[in-house]
Each structure stands twice: as structure tokens, then as C-alpha cells.
């Protein structure tokens, strides 16, 4: 939690959140469903990924295939919690942040996009994505 609250002096100095957000470990099956869910995870709006059953995947962002071999757990956790700490101009939503937002709709005010447990679930799923997308 401290890590989340401390404002990092420079983007490069902490490029990971190594402590899990919850005591209970993430569940990769739930995580996969969240990633594919267009109302909850929203990931496939922007990212393509290894979801042969899902039509209409976005192409605004890197393929999720291989994410688990490109990044370690802590790095992926930071990307989900608040990717803007790595790249302030990122279009990727900060999934676990409620501060510093503008005109949030009443139904979403004060709520994070995903809960702590959901972040850990998505993370557990991303770590299973070891294989790069075919080129």
C-alpha cells in the first residue's frame, strides 16, 4: 500500500509493484474471463490477445500474447494499477486509481475500474501468457 501512496520520484526508479494487493492469490481462470469482458476488463477494446473465440479485438496496443514472458509479476502489477507511472501519456486506463480524475460519471465515482482481487486475477492470467503471438 505504501508503494501505491508514495509518489515515485522518477518513472524509471520503481517500475514494479512487487507486493500483491490481496492476501488471497489470483485466479487465472477468473482473470481470463475478466480480460475478455468488454464491460469489466475492457482489455480487448485496445489489445489483441490469444482469444480465438472473441471477434472484434482492438489494435491500439501490443498483443497480450507473450506478456507473461516480457514482464515479471511486479512489472505487470504496476502496469495494471497505474500504467501512467511508466508513461504519463499512456491511453491505458489506470485500473486501481481513483485520484486525479476529471468528471467521472456518478456511477463510477470513487470506484476503481477493477477491484484488488480482480487485478490479482488478471495478473495471474497474464503470467500464463508465455508464448508470443505468431507473426
Amino acid at each position, binding site marked *: 500500500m505504501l508503494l501505491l501512496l508514495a509518489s515515485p520520484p*522518477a*518513472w*524509471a526508479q520503481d517500475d514494479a509493484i512487487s507486493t500483491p494487493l490481496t492476501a488471497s492469490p489470483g485466479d487465472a481462470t477468473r482473470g481470463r474471463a475478466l480480460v475478455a469482458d*468488454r464491460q469489466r476488463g*475492457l482489455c*480487448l*477494446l*485496445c489489445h489483441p490477445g490469444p482469444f480465438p473465440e472473441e*471477434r*472484434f*479485438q*482492438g*489494435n*491500439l496496443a501490443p498483443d497480450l500474447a507473450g506478456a507473461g514472458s516480457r514482464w515479471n509479476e511486479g512489472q505487470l502489477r504496476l502496469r495494471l494499477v497505474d500504467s*501512467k507511472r511508466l*508513461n*504519463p*501519456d499512456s*491511453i491505458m*486506463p*489506470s485500473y486501481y486509481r481513483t485520484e486525479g*480524475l*476529471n*468528471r*467521472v*460519471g*456518478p*456511477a*463510477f465515482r470513487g*470506484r476503481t*475500474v477493477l477491484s484488488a482481487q480482480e487485478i490479482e486475477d488478471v495478473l495471474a492470467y497474464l503470467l500464463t501468457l508465455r508464448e508470443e503471438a505468431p507473426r
Partner: protein
Amino acid sequence: MKRALPILLLAPLCLSASAQERRSGFENMARDTQAMQTDDTANPGMLWVLEGQSLWHQPAGPAAQSCASCHQNTEVSMRGVAARYPAWDEASAAPIDLAGRIAQCRETRQGAPPLARESQGLLSLSAYVGNQSRGLPIAPPADPRMDAAREQGRALYTARRGQLDLSCAQCHDDNAGRRLAGSTIPQAHPTGYPLYRLEWQTLGSLQRRLRGCMTGVRAEPFAYGASEYVAIEAFLASRAQGMALETPAVRP
């Protein structure tokens, strides 16, 4: 070395709409949707144009005047009008968009009951008046009194908003032409409004479209008719200056 990275990450963003060739959302559409727009007998928006034409000739208000009583020869009197809105409104000393002007004229000059935003009547009259400018280039007024609104519109366009924390520019300038799920992101040119949207299964205004883009990022939209929308409309018009009007367009 590490300092240089953020600049590298910014590089793709520089290929913004200003550097791209301007394209109407029409260009992104499937052939059959394009054909639906260009063939008046297939374009559902033409039903609203016809409805607007009949309203235009309908007497209303205490003096039983129709729009046509004061604005004779619509093809001449309304030609090019839609292309220069939003414009400055002397009465309210503020910018006004075409739907706002039509509603104002109906209420204050015709003395007829007001027409609400997105009502069938106001959409139909807007489609009819807009249709008189089809094919004409968007020509925002040079009026310097409009400058503050255009600047406000630009600021609203580039500000991040909502739980998803995205600005209009991040989608419509930085990522135009790419796919957000199944939709190709257009450059957000206001060339076709009011238009028939297949997803709505009805005709809707530009403000309805803007509202949809705001709720899409989980932001609180403005109220219909709000000065913020008129400011965004004025900015989008200046950005699309010279592009041809398509009213009533069709969009997915």
C-alpha cells in the same frame, strides 16, 4: 539515456490528425453502409428530412405563421446556413448551434411551443435545414467573438475525462484509423449531423454523439444544449473547415 525514453514513447503521438489527411467518417464505412447514405431512397435519414419539410410549411403560433412564411424559398434562404453554425447569437450574446437557432426562432419569432433537444420535431427541422447545405464546404464564421468558444472547445477536446481517463484527442487524433474493438476510430469530423446511426436505429444530433463518447469513457456528460457542447461543436467545425456536409449521413 533513461530520460530519452519518454520522448520516444511520445513519438507515435506526433502523427496526429493534423498530419494525417482529413477523412470523413464516411470513408471508414463498409461499402453497403456508404451506399445506404448516398442513395436517397435507401437513406433512412431522408424520412426526417421529409418530416422536417412538412413541419417547415405547417402554420403554428398566435399568428399562424409557418417557417416558410418568413423564410421563403428554402433552397435559397437556407442554403449554406448549416455550414456556418455554430455562430454568434446576438440575443443571448453567446455562441449558438443550428438546433439551438431553430428552436429559438420557433419559440421567439413563430411563437410556437418550444421544441426540446433530440425531439422528433427539432431533429426533423435540423435535418431539413441541414440538407439544404449538403455538399457545401463547412465554413465557420470568421467572427472573432466565436474565438473564445473555439478555444474552450479545443481545451475540452484535449482534456482527459472519466474513469477511463481518456481525451477526445487521444482517440480521434492519436489513434484515428485504428480499431477500438470492432470500430474503426474516425477523425471526429461533424460532417453528417443530424445523422442516422445504425446502432441507435434512429436519427441523432452531434450532441448525442458527443454524449455517447463521454459516457463511453465513463465520464459525466453535459446536459443537452450546454455551452460546453456548443464550444466543442464550434471547435470541431473549425477543424473540419472546408469539408463537405453530408446531412443526413449514415454511420454504423
